[in-house]
């Protein structure tokens, strides 16, 4: 066996449209080790995973395996080099059975026909090890998010790769599933498999990895063996994220303390939500923490009139109850900005047209018609304010994900919203845009809006919100504010762990959110 690392990448760069996903990343993984790559979402992790999987090609840079430069120009080339990648969930086939998903394009044949029995035999032990007790004949779409994620990981493992790349593999898993997965990964490591573990959660990296690298904005900023990481460095990595968040604009939120609650929700049920009550004041940002399926998204959809509530009472700042339709919501100054596909931005219309869309639809006063001149003025103003780096007559589709999200947010500014509902507003976008969106959210709160923000990134909630309400299985699981509001506490609340988290090493507990 040679001394060269199993895989090393040098100066990897990749542009996606106008957006630099990877600028200059170099790292190397030694044989039989787990190398964690930590970075906020949007830092370039998934792009790297896709390059290693052969789905995308790097614009420049080199990949070496066993010291030899290789070109990974197709998924089959990646496979030939012994690389398997567990991508995020979109890489699966919801209509097809679990077994079919596990063996896509690797189906074992018996006398020319696909052998279901052989597939079952090959996957049985692995599925049990991962704790995946599901009907393997059932369509994948019927499974929960955690189970789907495990299917994706199992599929990569079935290739018996030399290098396994895992992209946010714990995202949808609860504690016990995560621990189980880690046990499997450690066992594979002991048997000589090399792993790249891409994650946005530092504590996962610290618990699992032998080597930790940090990437930010498409660059690697630090790479050290786990054992050499000093407590200060750990704290530093942990706080990298905090510089993202602008300082709270305290002026108004202090005053707001004396005002009466403005949005009150009591006993609200519907979707997965059961009997939820809380209130939120103008001028504060209230975080809604919760895993996918915890009901936090459903709550926002109900407040926006997108989903029916079964029962419960809601009183908005304007004194009325739940809006019946989205149009009504918009007309009453209630807005929802989500990261879901499309998020209402029309990709094949100009930025100016998009920025005017809410004003025209929501305002039931003034001029009803689309006036190109008014739209242009409005757009010029907003493009400036939002720092969108394209002309307002370019198509919205030409913007990066971050730019599009800024347009989605900016549309609402024109109607002076009273209640701002945010559903993962900064998911999957680059750091620069994230920072600007956080700034906009702060501004909206400071100008007297009630802001509710749901996110599955606990550090984002801890960094941006004044207080956070945690949801678990459709119910309230607690509320934290002030100094006790940090990512680890929140994660405990939403997953329902009462014991001290075993995956979090003792050294990190001294870290607290500033």
């Amino acid at each position, binding site marked *: 066996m040679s001394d060269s690392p199993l895989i090393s990448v040098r100066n990897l760069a990749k542009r996606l449209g106008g957006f630099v996903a990877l600028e200059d990343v170099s790292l190397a993984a030694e044989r039989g080790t787990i190398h964690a790559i930590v970075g906020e979402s949007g830092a370039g992790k998934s792009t790297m995973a896709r390059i290693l999987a052969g789905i995308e090609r790097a614009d420049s840079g080199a990949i070496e395996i066993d010291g030899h430069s290789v070109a990974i120009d197709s998924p089959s080339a990646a496979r030939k080099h012994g690389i398997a990648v567990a991508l995020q969930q979109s*890489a*699966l*086939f919801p209509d097809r059975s679990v077994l079919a998903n596990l063996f896509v*394009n690797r189906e074992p044949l018996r006398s020319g026909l*696909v052998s279901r029995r052989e597939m079952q035999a090959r996957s049985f032990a692995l599925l049990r090890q991962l704790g995946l007790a599901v009907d393997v004949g059932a369509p994948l779409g019927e499974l929960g998010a955690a189970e789907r994620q495990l299917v994706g990981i199992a599929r990569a493992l079935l290739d018996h790769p030399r290098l396994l790349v895992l992209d946010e593999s714990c995202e949808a898993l609860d504690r016990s599933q995560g621990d189980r997965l880690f046990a499997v990964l450690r066992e594979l490591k002991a048997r000589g498999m090399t792993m790249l573990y891409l994650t946005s959660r530092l504590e996962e990296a610290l618990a699992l990895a032998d080597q930790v690298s940090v990437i930010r904005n498409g660059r690697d900023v630090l790479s050290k063996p786990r054992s050499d990481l000093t407590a200060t460095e750990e704290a530093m990595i942990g706080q990298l994220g905090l510089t993202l968040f602008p300082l709270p604009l305290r002026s108004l939120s202090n005053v707001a303390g004396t005002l009466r609650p403005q949005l009150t929700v009591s006993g609200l049920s519907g979707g997965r939500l059961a009997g939820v009550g809380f209130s939120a004041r103008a001028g504060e940002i209230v975080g809604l923490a919760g895993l996918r399926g915890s009901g936090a998204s459903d709550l926002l959809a109900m407040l926006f009139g997108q989903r029916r509530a079964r029962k419960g009472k809601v009183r908005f700042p304007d004194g009325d109850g739940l809006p019946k339709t989205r149009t009504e919501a918009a007309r009453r100054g209630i807005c929802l900005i989500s990261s879901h596909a499309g998020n209402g931005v029309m990709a094949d219309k100009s930025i100016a047209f998009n920025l005017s869309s809410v004003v025209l639809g929501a305002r039931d006063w003034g001029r009803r018609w689309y006036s190109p001149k008014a739209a242009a003025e409005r757009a010029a103003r907003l493009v400036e304010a939002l720092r969108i780096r394209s002309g307002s007559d370019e198509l919205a589709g030409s913007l990066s994900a971050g730019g599009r999200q800024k347009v989605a947010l900016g549309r609402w500014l024109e109607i002076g919203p009273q209640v701002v509902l945010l559903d993962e507003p900064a998911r999957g976008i680059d750091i620069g845009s994230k920072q600007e969106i956080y700034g906009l959210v702060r501004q909206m709160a400071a100008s007297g809006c009630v802001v509710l923000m749901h996110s599955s990134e606990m550090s984002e909630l801890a960094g941006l919100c004044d207080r956070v309400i945690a949801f678990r299985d459709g119910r309230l699981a607690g509320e934290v504010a002030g100094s006790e509001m940090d990512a680890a506490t929140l994660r405990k609340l939403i997953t329902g762990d009462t014991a001290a988290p075993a995956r979090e090493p003792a050294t990190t507990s001294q870290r607290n959110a500033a």
Partner: protein
Amino acid sequence: MENHSFVQRLIARPEFGPLVLLVVELVVFWGINPDFLSPQNISNILAFTVELGLIALAMTLLMTSGEFDLSVGSLFGFSPVLMWTLFNSGVTSLEMGLLIALIVAALVGLVNGWFVTQLKIPSFLVTLGMLLVVRGTALFITDGFPQRTWSAEGSWLANILVGDFYVGPFRIYASLFWFIGAAIVLGYVLTQSRTGNWIQAAGGNPNAARARGVNVNRVKVGLFILSAVMASLAGVISSLRTSAANPNSGTGYELEVIAMVVIGGTALTGGRGTIIGTVLGILILRVMRNGIVLIGVPGLAYNIFIGAIILGMMALHSWLERRHQAGT
């Protein structure tokens, strides 16, 4: 895992709806007019059913991969015209004419596939254009008149494709066996072979399929060729059976074939397909056409019923889907 009873699993299958519909149809028509199930009528239904059916089988695979082909109806008319024209002008033998017709059809499929996969034009537009090109060519080379056909009875080609014989009181054409054979082979290909898994993966989530190394484009081009060749073969079979080669024949078949496939439970958006369902869908529509006439409804009202069936089946599908999602 195995706690579902046989009945429950039968009901859960996507083919269950079409099966019930077919049985209801048969019972109703037979109740109103007992002649409906007479040997002569059954033979009648089967003769033409299998010709359209061949196209529908290939279309099932194509639609499972997420594309469809509107040019099959015009190929159905064009191929026999080409074959007879070559034969009548003395250029080739009948067999050679058939071979050339099939090759030309394969090329048409190749062009369809190339436009769709390389130029990324939706198959609706590509095959709509091809429909007009092929139909136009058929009309042009024949001046719009039916081709003179020589009664092909007795030639070995006619015997293999449409030779008829009696099984008891039933008059059976050889094409029935071609259809059954194609249904079995394509059914196995779709559900049991690696190619079938490629097809379903390509239709279900093309990007994920590419990420797993499936050559999605090659799969689609192959299926466009298959569908074109099957349409051409069906046209030739039909022309030999009826001793006619009309450049206008096959008009509107593309939509009827797509309706058969969709009624059978194949998703119009791709990813899910069933050959058994398609066979049921073929029978549902052909039995409907025949039965309506037999029970005294004017034949021209046929389309009303087809439309109603399609709407009803789609409503059922979407209802099941929504109930399904609410349950999870």
